[in-house]
């Protein structure tokens, strides 16, 4: 009896922290990535005078929304335990294809529908092949990406244009949707609203629909999800289709931003989409993470990019630094368990 009394007292004194600990554990990625975001923003405000100006914030938001839309698809693939390396190629293909169709005199909405269908089909094929060849999904998407972009360029170069770029008049609404100057709802670039809407939609979808729950189930444990009759093939196809559609959206928006189409428009997004997902805290092993984390990751990456530009680093040097940042970030969340934990 006497020995039990101190036990009780210690338990009661530590109960507050003990109750907090699992919460902190579960929310660790959010806390870590949000802290990193705050730190980078503070560094930005202190070291670059115009960092907190309206123009700089607006341009960061605009650049972030291109990355954010493309990363949304990457997040879904990562939650499933795969990676979509075809995103940059689909962006380039959508970029070229849209302007090429517009130049041919196809109506605007018809163009968008055609591009969406083409990208969805290519994504679905990529998803199906990835599902069939499970362990090798990453390489499959790389191959699919090269085929999609190569086929688009072949199609475009058919009537004696060079396949690497298309010139023409971009629709006015697309230009103003992706311009730093124009703004709706208190000077927000419309592209950012697209990103916000997409993020909210996907967040809802991941929580409330069979597709979203199926993604988490499959990413967490494929065998168990299969036993629960989660339709694995359908989900793989749908997820890669959505990823391709979001990449296509990014490509079309980039068309408005750069007012001309180039094949390598998507090149920066090969790595940055993966980086945004990882820095946010979504595990690349599947099953843990979410779209909100990726949104934070996109913000961190955009702010870091702005910092590096502000400090006068060239584009290759920025690449090196972001490449070096990624390994410690993955090391925090994305480590596979030791063999002894898996037996």
């Amino acid at each position, binding site marked *: 009896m006497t020995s039990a009394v101190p036990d009780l007292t210690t338990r009661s004194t530590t109960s507050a922290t003990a109750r907090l600990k699992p919460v902190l554990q579960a929310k660790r990625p959010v806390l870590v990535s949000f802290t990193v975001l705050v730190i980078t923003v503070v560094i930005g405000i202190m070291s670059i005078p115009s960092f907190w100006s309206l123009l700089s914030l607006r341009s960061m938001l605009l650049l972030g929304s291109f990355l954010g839309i493309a990363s949304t698809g990457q997040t879904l693939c990562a939650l499933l335990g795969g990676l979509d390396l075809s995103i940059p190629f689909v962006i380039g293909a959508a970029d070229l294809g849209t302007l090429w169709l517009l130049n041919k005199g196809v109506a605007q909405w018809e163009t968008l529908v055609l591009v969406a269908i083409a990208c969805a089909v290519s994504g679905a094929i990529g998803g199906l092949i990835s599902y*069939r060849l499970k362990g090798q999904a990453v390489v499959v998407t790389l191959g699919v990406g*090269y085929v999609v972009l190569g086929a688009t360029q072949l199609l475009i170069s058919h009537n004696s244009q060079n396949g690497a770029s298309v010139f023409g008049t971009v629709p006015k609404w697309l230009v103003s949707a992706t311009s730093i100057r124009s703004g709706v709802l208190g000077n927000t670039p419309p592209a950012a609203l697209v990103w916000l809407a997409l993020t909210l939609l996907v967040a809802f979808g991941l929580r409330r629909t069979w597709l979203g729950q199926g993604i988490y189930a499959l990413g967490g444990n494929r065998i168990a999800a299969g036993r629960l009759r989660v339709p694995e093939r359908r989900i793989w196809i749908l997820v890669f289709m959505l990823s391709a559609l979001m990449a296509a959206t990014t490509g079309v928006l980039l068309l408005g931003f750069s007012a001309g189409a180039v094949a390598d428009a998507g090149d920066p997004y090969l790595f940055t989409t993966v980086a945004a997902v990882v820095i946010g805290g979504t595990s690349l092993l599947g099953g843990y993470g979410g779209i909100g984390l990726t949104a934070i990751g996109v913000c961190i990456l955009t702010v870091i990019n702005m910092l590096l530009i502000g400090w006068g680093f060239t584009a290759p040097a920025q690449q090196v630094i972001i*490449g070096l940042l*990624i*390994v410690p970030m993955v090391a925090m969340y994305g480590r596979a368990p030791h063999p002894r934990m898996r037996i």
Partner: protein
Amino acid sequence: MATVRAPSSWVRRTGWEYLPRVREAAVDVATPALLCVLLLIILGFRFPQLYSSNGLAGAITASAPLILSVLAMTSIAISSPGGIDLSIGPFVAFVNVGIVHWLVPHGLGNPLYVFAYAIGVGIAFQMIQGLLIGLLRLQPVIVTLSGYLVFSGLNLVVLPNPEGTIPHWLNDWGAATSVNTPELYLLIGCFVLWGFFARTTFARNIRLVGGNDKTAWVSGLNPVLVRLGAHIVAGVFVGLAGITLTALLQSADPTQGAAQTLMAVTALVVGGVSLSGGRGRALGAVLGAIAIFLIGYVIGTLNLGTSESFVSGLIYGAVLIIALFIGSITGSALGVRKRAAISTEVSQ
């Protein structure tokens, strides 16, 4: 303990199954070998110059970097599931840039220094990757993708434009006047070296760790050390690939990386090396590299002009997907997929 055997009537055996090793080797090597023969016949019609002494020498010089890169990737691919080295292209270009931009201007262009530098840097970088993959247990794709980014950026930081002079002795390497080139002997040497290496216990341990690291760990192997060893072996070949690339370019080119990575990955897959780990042989990988190189020659004979770059991207991508399919079909014919499925099921 008495061994329990299934009655022979349970298992229907065909002739091949009595020779599992030979059968496995034949299945792995058949696809790239057939592809090579087919491409060589096509080239006999479209590009007969290939079969002259000059043509063959040129082909050896031009294909050496790819073959050596693919040998390096084979070692890494066997050592872990998903063990694909995406950084290979930019890193080989980095070795090339280093030789031309750092060694030659400082008078360190003699073969001893060049080989020591190339192999040393190769081993050092691969050791870092190996430790990150083995010790920190990060996914190989992420580690090597970040290596890809770092080195493709670093090459441009060090050397913004393709330029520079190579060591004198490498001029002869790139001259390609007779089949008797140093590259040929280097390739044969590497192949013989691999032949000895593949028969060591260490190589068998690499296959075991790559195929199933739980079994390997339970059997007393240290997966970290074994993977590190596989990466060190890869580092040697990566360094040599950098030297042959320098001989081929006769200069330094910081922008070589991306295309090289796609070609090497495609060659690896065509060569029957499984990206799920544990399975693959150098003969298949080398034949795969030769096939990919020959596809490039065939595309070159089509006279596509400006559209050549994306047509080749399209074709390599398509070959990659088809090769993956063939690999998965032959893999399941060998029961590899079934074994893999069982091991995943146990692990989950």
